[in-house]
């Protein structure tokens, strides 16, 4: 990733590692209500939650739970009917909607790239609306393409129809980040992508987020995606009611009620294992046993369990990247992950 002085003049709370970003803002839903005229029930009857600056909040729930509605209230694509939404402590209702939207990155499932604009013109959309100079825009476009690991020389001049679905989705994210917004809204961005490419886009998103550290509101109906990507997950039930808002591990360890338990699935214990790696476990020493094989210490515990089961339940030797032996992956050691979680180690917001 290149480091450039493009944003040197912009002020921000925190700076990312690479200089492509100037910070994030806290987002707060304060008693947010959405009613549609002619309908007795509110789509969202009163939602309060806070997303700390730089964290990924995943809104997840079945259809009719109002997750997309809640997201679109933030940038006023849908008008609020009650309560308030604050971005960096400032009400979005005080802002001119078009100005507000230029400060909030926006990614949707169908991407919505402009078919008549080249990749570079697509990425330059918001910087142009903001009246940046030509040189600054050009530099920024290059920077964004490098951020999403695409070669500017190869793709900058292409039209969207000349790209693969995965490339289009990444460019959609680059376009949303181009003006360095403190908040990014993503509405099922990987929903239309096949499973293999989706996994790689999710990895790409996590790597990107580690660099840019934006506040992100991510909507999905896929609980596995929520667990994988979210720093916090807001589970909404039908009728727009918040069922639980907590980090993934806490939701899996302590579902707030039967709805959440059912929504996260009967395999929530397995999902919980997927959140930890072998490095985090207390492993029994080798003690002259004969392990059935080796697993890397970076492997997540869920995959390690699968490996142990595949070995007929016999322990496997855990090996570091440097070749050092960390101990044995046994069924007992793995099961301890779930037992250790006793009373909540993380508190709900």
């Amino acid at each position, binding site marked *: 990733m290149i480091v450039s002085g493009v944003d040197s003049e912009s002020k921000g709370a925190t700076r990312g590692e690479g200089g492509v970003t100037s910070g994030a803002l806290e987002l707060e839903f304060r008693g947010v209500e959405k009613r549609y005229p002619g309908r007795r029930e509110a789509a969202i009857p009163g939602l309060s939650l806070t997303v700390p600056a730089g964290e990924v909040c995943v809104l997840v729930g079945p259809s009719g739970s109002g997750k997309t509605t809640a997201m679109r209230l933030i*940038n006023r694509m849908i008008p609020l009917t009650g309560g308030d939404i604050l971005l960096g402590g400032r009400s979005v209702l005080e802002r001119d*909607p078009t*100005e507000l939207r230029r400060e909030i990155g926006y990614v949707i499932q169908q991407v*919505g790239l*402009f*078919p*008549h604009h080249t990749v570079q013109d697509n990425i330059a959309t918001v910087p142009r609306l903001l009246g940046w100079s030509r040189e600054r825009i050009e530099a920024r476009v290059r920077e964004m393409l490098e951020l999403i690991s695409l070669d500017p020389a190869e793709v900058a001049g292409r039209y969207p129809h000349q790209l693969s679905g995965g490339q289009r989705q990444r460019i959609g994210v680059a376009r*949303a980040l181009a003006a360095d917004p403190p908040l990014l809204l993503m509405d099922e961005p990987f929903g239309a992508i096949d499973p293999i490419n989706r996994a790689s886009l999710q990895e790409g998103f996590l790597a990107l987020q580690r660099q840019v550290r934006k506040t992100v509101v991510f909507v999905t109906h896929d609980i596995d995606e929520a667990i994988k990507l979210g720093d916090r997950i807001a589970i909404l039930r039908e009728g727009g009611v918040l069922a639980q808002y907590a980090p993934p591990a806490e939701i899996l360890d302590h579902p707030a009620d039967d709805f959440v338990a059912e929504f996260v699935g009967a395999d929530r214990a397995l999902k919980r294992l997927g959140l930890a790696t072998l490095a985090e476990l207390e492993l029994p020493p080798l003690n002259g046993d004969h392990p059935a094989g080796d697993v890397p210490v970076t492997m997540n515990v869920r995959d390690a369990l699968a490996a142990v089961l595949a070995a007929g339940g016999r322990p496997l030797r855990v090996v570091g990247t440097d070749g050092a032996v960390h101990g044995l992956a046994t069924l007992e050691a793995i099961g301890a992950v779930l037992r250790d979680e006793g009373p909540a180690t993380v508190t709900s917001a």
Partner: protein
Amino acid sequence: MNLPFAAGGPVIPNFGSAHQYSCERANGLFCWGWFRQNWAGTLWPALRQHVILVLIAVVAGFLISLGLALLAHRYRRVEQPAIVFTSFLYTIPALAFFELLLGVPGLGLNRPTAEIPLVSYTLLILFRNNLTGLRSVPVDVLDAARGMGMSRRQLLWRVELPLALPAIIAGLRIATVSTVALATLAALIDNEGLGAPILSAINDSYFKTELIAAGGLAVLLAVGADGLLVAAQRLLTPWARRRVA
């Protein structure tokens, strides 16, 4: 009608040799000699007038229909009345329309009067295509554009109109080609354009060169104008070219 072209036939200058009029004497179907001699004095001016007639009609028709389409795009209730109105204009028989205007008091026998029916006939196809184009913009593109903070005006100029161009130009092609043909009737009103030599030739039941020349020029003009519009579309919408596999 007193048409100067037809009065006594073309004046043929004497270039010396007599056999150059053999085609005319033999009443050939198409006499190149006649064509060459009447190009500068008759056919070329008529062609130029024709181009202007068509240009004014298509440009005026396009502006009116685009305005209507933008209104209908924003206010759905405008669409139905606009379709009824433009369809009504389109159903008036062309010959009757031109002849009717000859009798309307206050309308001179001039170019503006001749443009009335020409513009009227372009409206239906242009309105429909413009509106179809504006409505063809994918909803996800509109959503993304609004979500990134485009104002209504920016949305129109930067997204909706550019993406409507293929449909708009398709409409312009049909309107232009049909107006080239129709504009020959304008000669009934103000005696200009390629219709003038055609009308004079119709009065001559034997000599067909003038009719074929003027009609042929109209066809060539239509084909040429269509080609120009195709080229314009390729230039303006490079993104719409199919991907080369």
